[in-house]
């Protein structure tokens, strides 16, 4: 809910700058490592879209991204299984950098 409230906060300041009175659609990218659950985000959005900032029936599209790591030793990039396998699949090294999975980004919004 707090995340969706910050989403509404961002949109409330951005929409007027682009002369948009009613938002019809918002697109979010959500990484697996954030533990932000798409269903919970959708539910929170369904409550918050009642605000005048949104057109009736405004839609939230969520693109989910898996967690990916890159080994600092051998450079191999790999999917981090179950959010837990921070062990390089190439050399077994521990020095793994998170390159994907922490996203919580508003990609775009649409409206009139």
């Amino acid at each position, binding site marked *: *809910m*707090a*995340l969706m409230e*910050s*989403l509404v*906060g*961002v949109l409330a300041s*951005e*929409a007027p700058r*682009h002369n*948009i009175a009613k938002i019809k659609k918002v697109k*979010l990218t959500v990484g697996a*490592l*954030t*533990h932000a659950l798409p269903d919970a985000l959708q539910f929170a959005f369904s409550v918050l879209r009642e605000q005048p900032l949104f057109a009736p029936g405004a839609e939230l599209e969520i693109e989910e991204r898996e967690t990916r790591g890159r080994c600092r030793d051998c450079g191999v990039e790999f999917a981090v299984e*179950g*959010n*837990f*396998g*921070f*062990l390089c699949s190439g050399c077994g090294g*521990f020095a793994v950098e*998170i390159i994907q999975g*922490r*996203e*919580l*980004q*508003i*990609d*775009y*919004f*649409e*409206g*009139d």
Partner: protein
Amino acid sequence: MQIKLGQNLLGANAAIAGEIRRLMEEKGILLLNLMSSPGAGKTTLLEKTLAALKDRLRLAVIEGDVATTKDAERIARLGIPVVQINTHGACHLDAAMVRDVLPAFDLDGLDLLIVENVGNLVCPAEFDLGEAMKVVVLSTTEGNDKVPKYPLMFREAGALLLNKIDLLPFTDFHLDELADDLGRIHPGLPRFDLSARTGEGMDRWSEWLLAQVEERRRR
């Protein structure tokens, strides 16, 4: 009309956290963000840590809680400046909440400011408060599965306190399993096995923390 944003949802929080971090660096204060599940023993641990350090460092505390001021009252009894933030239902503190209470402290007269976050292992890991270090408390009674279930918290931590070590014989907690899991998620993470209740292991932690504060002051 479609408006491309590409803006991080937590971007506003990150900006405020950056301001707090710069302020703390300027004042030479170590800001610590203390996190755990509910019931891991954060407040007792904090009380004992403050009691051990209060003659050697100038301390203050920000208590985050969903409701109630019980924890803040416990800290105030030690004679240490404390401000309570009630999140009114939110499961974590954010940077703006911390920024807004900073004027309550004499920042020129502080060495260590500890934020006790809301008891929760998920959201607090995502919200940067401008801290120099996150310290996560895990207790033996919670079971080993907290580490693999909440990897981000343990990855982000600068130190891990394993509390309730006195209860180890009465639980199914395995120290070997903890070491294995941490080896995969955060190798080299400083870990202190202790019991805030009995005092076992508290010295090692307090000394380490003191060294971190001194290092910050020297910079």
